[in-house]
C-alpha cells in the first residue's frame, strides 16, 4: 500500500507478512523515501520503537511545507533519537551529547537563511543539555526543536532520565524511580518558547501538522513526542510491545489545545494531555540583536546575512 498524503493513516504497525514482495520493491514511489539516506538502511532502531514513526511525520511535514531542502539543516545530539540526523537526506550534524542546541545556534547565526531543526531525545536535550535548551528558548533564536521522549536512555540500556515517571522501573531505578520528572512543556513555556506542543507516535497526523506549524513559525519552537521503547521502558514496566503502546497512548491521551502547561505533567499510568499548548509571538533573537545594534550604531552597523568566508 502506498501512503498518500491527506488520507488518515492506518493505526499501529502492520504485521510484515501482510506486505507482498512486489509492494516492497515499489518503495521508490514512497513519498518519504526521497528524504532518507536509503544507503544507510537498515536503521538501528528496535522493532516497535517510535522514532522511525516521528521521522515519517518529519518527512511528510517537510514535503507539505514546501521548504527548499537544500536550505534545511538537521542537528542531533547523542542517543537513539540522536541517530535521526544520520538517516535523513539533509545537511546533517550528529554532534556531542547534549550539545545539539549550541551547535545549531552557531549554524543558524552564521547562516540565518537555513531552517535549522534540532532533533534529539529527552535525556540529551533535558539532562546533559538542559542548560542549553532553556537559554536557547530564552533567547528565542529561530530553532525548531523536536524532542522524542521515551522516558529512558535507550542507547545505553534503559537508564533513568529526568523524564522518567515516578515509580517507573529502569536499569538505574530498579526499585522504581523516586525522583519527580520534568514537565517538558511547562519548562519550555516558562523559558520562553513561542510554540509548545505535545503529541505521541499514535498521533501521526497531528504530529505532522505540528511540524508543519513550526517550519512556518519564527522563533524557538518545541514539540515533545512521546514514543515507545518496547525493548527497555515497556519491557521493564510490563507495558507490552509497540502495539500495546499505541493502545495505551490512544486510551490515555486527551487532546486539550491551549491547556495551561503547568497542568500537563506526566505520570506513569495517568492521562496524557496532548495538543498545542503555546503559540505566541515574541521578538526573535537575531531581529532583536540587529535592531539594538542598528539603533545604537546607526550607519556604522554592518549587517551581514551569511557569514561565509572566502
Amino acid at each position, binding site marked *: 500500500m502506498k501512503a498518500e498524503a491527506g488520507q488518515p493513516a492506518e493505526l499501529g504497525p502492520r504485521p510484515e507478512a501482510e506486505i507482498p514482495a512486489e509492494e516492497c520493491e515499489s518503495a521508490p514511489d514512497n513519498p518519504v523515501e526521497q528524504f532518507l539516506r536509503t544507503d544507510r538502511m537498515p536503521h538501528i532502531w528496535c522493532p516497535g520503537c517510535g522514532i522511525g514513526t516521528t521521522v515519517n511525520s518529519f518527512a511528510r511535514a517537510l514535503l507539505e511545507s514546501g521548504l527548499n531542502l*537544500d536550505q534545511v539543516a538537521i542537528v542531533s545530539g547523542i542517543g537513539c533519537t540522536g541517530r535521526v540526523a544520520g538517516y535523513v537526506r539533509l545537511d546533517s*550534524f550528529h554532534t556531542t551529547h547534549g550539545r545539539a542546541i549550541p551547535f545549531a545556534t552557531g549554524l543558524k*547565526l552564521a547562516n540565518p537563511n537555513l531552517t535549522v531543526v534540532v532533533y534529539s531525545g529527552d535525556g540529551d536535550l533535558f539532562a546533559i543539555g538542559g542548560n542549553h535548551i532553556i537559554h536557547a528558548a530564552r533567547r528565542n533564536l529561530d530553532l525548531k526543536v523536536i524532542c522524542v521522549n521515551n522516558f529512558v536512555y535507550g542507547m545505553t540500556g534503559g537508564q533513568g532520565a529526568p523524564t522518567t515517571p515516578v515509580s517507573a522501573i529502569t536499569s538505574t531505578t530498579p526499585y522504581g524511580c523516586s525522583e519527580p520528572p520534568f514537565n517538558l512543556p511547562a519548562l519550555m513555556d516558562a523559558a520562553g518558547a513561542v510554540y509548545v506542543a505535545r503529541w505521541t507516535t499514535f498521533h501521526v497526523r497531528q504530529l505532522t501538522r505540528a511540524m508543519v506549524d513550526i517550519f512556518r513559525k519564527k522563533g524557538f519552537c518545541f514539540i515533545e513526542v512521546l514514543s515507545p521503547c518496547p525493548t527497555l521502558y515497556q519491557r521493564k514496566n510490563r507495558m507490552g510491545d509497540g502495539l500495546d503502546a499505541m493502545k495505551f497512548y490512544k486510551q490515555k491521551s486527551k487532546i486539550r489545545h491551549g491547556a495551561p502547561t503547568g497542568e500537563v505533567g506526566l505520570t506513569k499510568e495517568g492521562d496524557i494531555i496532548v495538543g498545542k499548548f503555546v503559540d505566541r509571538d515574541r521578538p526573535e533573537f537575531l531581529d532583536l540583536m540587529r535592531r539594538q545594534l542598528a539603533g545604537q550604531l546607526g550607519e556604522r552597523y554592518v549587517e551581514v546575512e551569511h557569514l561565509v568566508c572566502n
Partner: protein
Amino acid sequence: MLHADPKGVLTGVHFLDGDHAACEGALAAGARFAAGYPITPSTEVVERFAARIPTVGGVFIQMEDELAASIAIAGAVWAGAKAFTVTSGPGFSLMMEHIGFAAMTETPCVFINVQRGGPSTGLPTLPAQADMMQARWGSHGDYEIIALCPNSPQECFDLAIRAFNLAEQYRVPVMLMMDECVGHMTEKVVIPPAEQIEIYPRRHTRRPPGQYQPFAPAEDLVPEMAHAGEGYRFHVTGLTHDERGYPSMTVAAQDRLVGRLKRKITQAADRLACYQEEGVEDAQVIVVSYGITSRVAQRAVELARARGAKVGRLRLITVWPFPEAHIRALARTAKAFVVPELNLGQISLEVERAAAGQARTLQVPHAGGGVHRPEQILDAIMEVLK
C-alpha cells in the same frame, strides 16, 4: 593565499594589550563569529570582539557556558564562517569535549587560552603555563592539534592570524596558548595593511553535489569542505566515520580515520615547526622556553654570558606538534637543556624525551602566580656547567 579582507584590519601603529591584539589578529584573519563565556584573564578578547564586530559585519554571542561556546563555533564554521572562542583554565577544561569533536570532524577553528594558575579555580588573575599538556592531550582518544605560544602583544596579533591560517590548511583546532602576562601586557602593536596579510582560504570543494565525499582526503590527507545550505546534503558525525561521513564501527575504519587525523599533522611537523634561536651552534647549554618565560630567559642568558658561559636560546613558537627533530639535532652538540616554564614540568619532559639521553635536561619549575626571576634560570645554567 589570499589577502585579508580590509574590513577587519585595523591598519596602523597601536598600543594594545595581548588580549586586544589577539582579537585584532582574529578579525584580520577573517573571523566573523565568536562565542564566549566570561573568564579572567581572557575576557578582554571577546569584549573587544563584541565591540568591534558589529562595525565589521559578523556575530558575537555570549553563551551559557564554555561547553556551548566551544561547539557554537563549530556550528558557525559548518555554515561557512571563520570562528573562534576564548577562555582560560577552568573554561578550557570544559572545552575539551569540543576540541575532540573539532579534531574528529576536521572543523577548522581556533581556541585562545589565556593561561592562569590552576588546578581548579587556582589563580584567576595571575599567570601560568600549566595547560600546555592539556592543550595537547586534554580530550579523549588519539588526535593531533597545533598550538602556538606568543610572547608579546605583537605576536598575539601575528600568531592569531597564523592560527586561523593553519586551522584552515590542516582542518584542525588550533590553540593560541597565551598567558596572563602576555594577555595583560601593553606594548606597541603594528597592524600592517590588509594587502600585506596573507590568508589561507577555506578548502572548499569544487566538486558538484553527488561527486563529493566530505571526508575523502586530498594528497596531504586533508579533505575538502562544503558548507550547510549549498546542496551537498552531507553528514558530519563525531562517531568514527568513512569518507562519506557515515558512521562505520570497524577496526579498519577506526585505523583509517584516526591514523589519518594523526598523520596529516605529524607528516607536516617539520613545516609546522616554528622557533627563534640564537647562539645555539656552539652552546654548551641551551635555554628552551616559550611565552612570557622566554623574556625572563633572555635576561638569564645575558647574565650567564657575562660570566663567560656558552649559552644559547631556543624559543618555541609552535609548541605542538613538538619540534622534536630540532631538539634531537641540538642535543647532539649541547651538553644540556635548561627549561624554565610556569608549571612543574610539562614541556621540559618533551625536551627530555626528544633529547633521548644525548643531552641532560634540567627543569626550572614554577607553580605559577608570577614569573621566574632571571637568577633562578641563571642558577640552573651555572649548575649544569659546574
